[in-house]
């Protein structure tokens, strides 16, 4: 058990995977000598040579399509998209090939690969550097979509993603890169595809993933003072989604708030809320509420704190969970504000 940053844990996961499986190759923009703009691939080229870890031409569709070809030849590509919004040029390759090749070939041609995407904000980044793009991938059948919230998960989920027979879009919350935590670099945590209860509680369940998990945990702490004992579930793998863990928790607590950083409309949080109310209707004392980013382009550094789900916003939502069994005044009016 060692203490390290998430960035270091991801770096270790890549190094260990390259050590264990010589088919693993790491490439992308600036991943070689520079070690990536976030240093996630730091030292890999020096250690494994410039055939195992290398820079490519500056073209994301090319990087992902090249990975498809490498996977066809039997290698295990792990590619880095430099930032969330800069993966968009690769969208056709991801949606029409990476996600579908196994299906189109009856399993004869699988293209296991990991597409690493540093995502989301909270780092004071300028435009195009802070998008939350997980929903685009989660809505695309054939892709697995994973996002760690802890240092330990960063290591183990990345190792599992690289070993996985299916293509995995690995979403890395930028703002957690340099947060430290404990990680046992030999152990795996939960099996792939399992959510985990990060904090047990009796009164309500906060369901969160990636960058929103620390916010949920902080909110749960703060909620104590208000006399609420909140459970926090970390989704970990958006696809496949772990209904069992989430549903069990909400059936126990009877209340649920979903927290995500991405703009809310048609996001992953909508899916979670829809699933929970379908499966837990009779256990619910209040509607499943969502705390999400605003439905705007990711804002400027100066304003991102207003955009991002905050502890206060989570607590406001929890407060609206009809503890007095009175309907939510916000929606009482016959017509919705417009």
């Amino acid at each position, binding site marked *: 058990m060692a203490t390290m940053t998430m960035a270091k844990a991801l770096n270790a996961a890549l190094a260990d995977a390259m050590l264990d499986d010589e088919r693993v*190759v790491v490439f992308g923009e600036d991943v070689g000598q520079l070690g990536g703009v976030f240093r996630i691939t730091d030292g890999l080229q020096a250690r494994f040579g410039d*055939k195992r870890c290398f820079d*490519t*031409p500056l*073209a994301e*569709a*090319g990087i*992902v*399509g*090249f*990975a*498809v*070809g*490498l*996977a*066809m*030849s*039997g*290698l295990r590509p792990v590619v880095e998209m430099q930032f969330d919004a800069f993966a968009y*040029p690769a969208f*056709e*390759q991801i949606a*029409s*090939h990476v996600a579908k*090749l*196994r*299906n*189109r*070939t*009856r*399993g*004869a*041609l*699988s293209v296991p690969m990991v597409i690493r995407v540093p995502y989301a904000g909270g780092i004071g980044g300028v435009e195009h550097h802070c998008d939350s793009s997980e929903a685009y991938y989660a809505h695309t*059948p*054939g892709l*697995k979509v994973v996002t760690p919230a802890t240092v330990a998960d960063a290591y183990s989920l990345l190792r599992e993603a690289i070993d*996985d*027979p*299916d293509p995995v879009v690995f979403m890395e919350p930028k703002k957690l890169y340099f947060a430290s935590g404990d990680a046992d670099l030999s152990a795996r945590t939960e099996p792939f*595809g399992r959510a985990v209860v990060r904090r047990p509680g009796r009164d309500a369940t906060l369901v969160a993933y990636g960058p929103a998990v620390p916010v949920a945990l902080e909110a749960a702490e703060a909620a104590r003072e208000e006399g609420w004992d909140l459970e926090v579930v970390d989704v970990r793998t958006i*696809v*496949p*989604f*772990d*209904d*069992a863990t989430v549903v069990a928790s909400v059936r126990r607590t009877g209340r649920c708030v979903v927290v995500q950083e991405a703009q809310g409309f048609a996001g992953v949080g909508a899916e979670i809320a829809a699933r929970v109310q379908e499966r837990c209707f009779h256990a619910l004392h209040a509607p499943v509420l969502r705390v999400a980013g605003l439905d705007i382009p990711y804002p400027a550094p100066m304003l991102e704190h207003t955009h991002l789900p905050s502890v206060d916003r989570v607590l406001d939502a929890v407060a609206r969970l009809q503890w007095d069994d009175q309907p939510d005044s916000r929606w009482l009016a016959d017509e919705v504000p417009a």
Partner: protein
Amino acid sequence: MTTTPQAARRASPRKRRPATPAAPDPSAGLMPQAEPVRLLNSDGTALPSRPDYPEPPVEALREMYRRMVVGRRFDAQATALTKQGRLAVYPSSRGQEACQVGGVLALRDDDWVFPTYRESMALTARGIDPVEVLTLLRGDWHCGYDPTAVRTAPQCTPLATQCVHAAGLAYGESYQGRDTVAFVYIGDGATSEGDFHEGVNFAAVFKAPVVFFVQNNRYAISVPLSRQTAAPSLAYKGVGYGVPSEQVDGNDPVAVLAVLNRAVAHARAGKGPYLVEAHTYRMEPHTNADDQTRYRDAEEVEAWRDRDPIARLESYLRAREVLDDAAVAEIAEEAEAYAAGLRERMNTKPTVDPLSLFEHVYAQPTPQLVEQREQVRAELAATQEEDA
């Protein structure tokens, strides 16, 4: 100080000198010939031979003829099958036989082919079961053949996307010490896509053994070549990537094979990718569903009949005395038999288990897919009860 008119007018202290200095041309060896390579006249008579493109062995040319004849018959049969509702859709490559077959003959069995939807003829010429080749167009849910077994990627519909796959596959193979060549079929229209640019560039930067074979058949559905490029030839794109390029008369089977042999040898020798543009013409509509009268007139199509690649090769091989009436008849029979066999085997609607919908989405179905599969299973059971 401000510039005085005098100072400004004062002549610059320069000597005049003739325009461009004579420097070695860095583009040497990259640029295509000014005219498409041609070894046969349209009537099949031989042009003077040329050292840069030695003529392929006559046995190869005879085999090429055989596969072109069988291929055209296959193509006609497939089009016929659409009329009988046996195929959802079929894109014919009639008129492009020299390109379809030439690509295949230039390759080894263990090379990889990256075809588009237009390459059904090439794939059958490669020896893939025609029923497998047509599986997808029949309305089934997969590409039919096992790509790894026949070293042929699924026919690619998203245009130009296969270019980067080929670059990756070729690099991965050489990375693992194999001298596999990746061969990309692509159309003139698809060269306008960003993925063509990225694919050729990746191959060039990584010196990957890829041959990019552009079948310029003059149209992208209804859009003429003039809307795809303002360049003298699509082969002029190669130099921008440092990739040697050539253009060839795509209806001259001898020239096509000669040029592709050289391109494949170049790639196999580890010298990196090669780009070939073949000038050819699609004699049929884009697919059976297309109405070509909206964008080209019959005269234009007719004019291309005089350059028919099969007639051209036939008369040449007859002149070389490696083909005679008997052989032609024999090959025609073989083609008929091939078509008859296909017709018969396609004479049934394939049946598919609805539950196969949930297979091969992932290596193992997710809990969500298991759930959905059970719902569908229940629905099917219910309907069966009703029917019973």
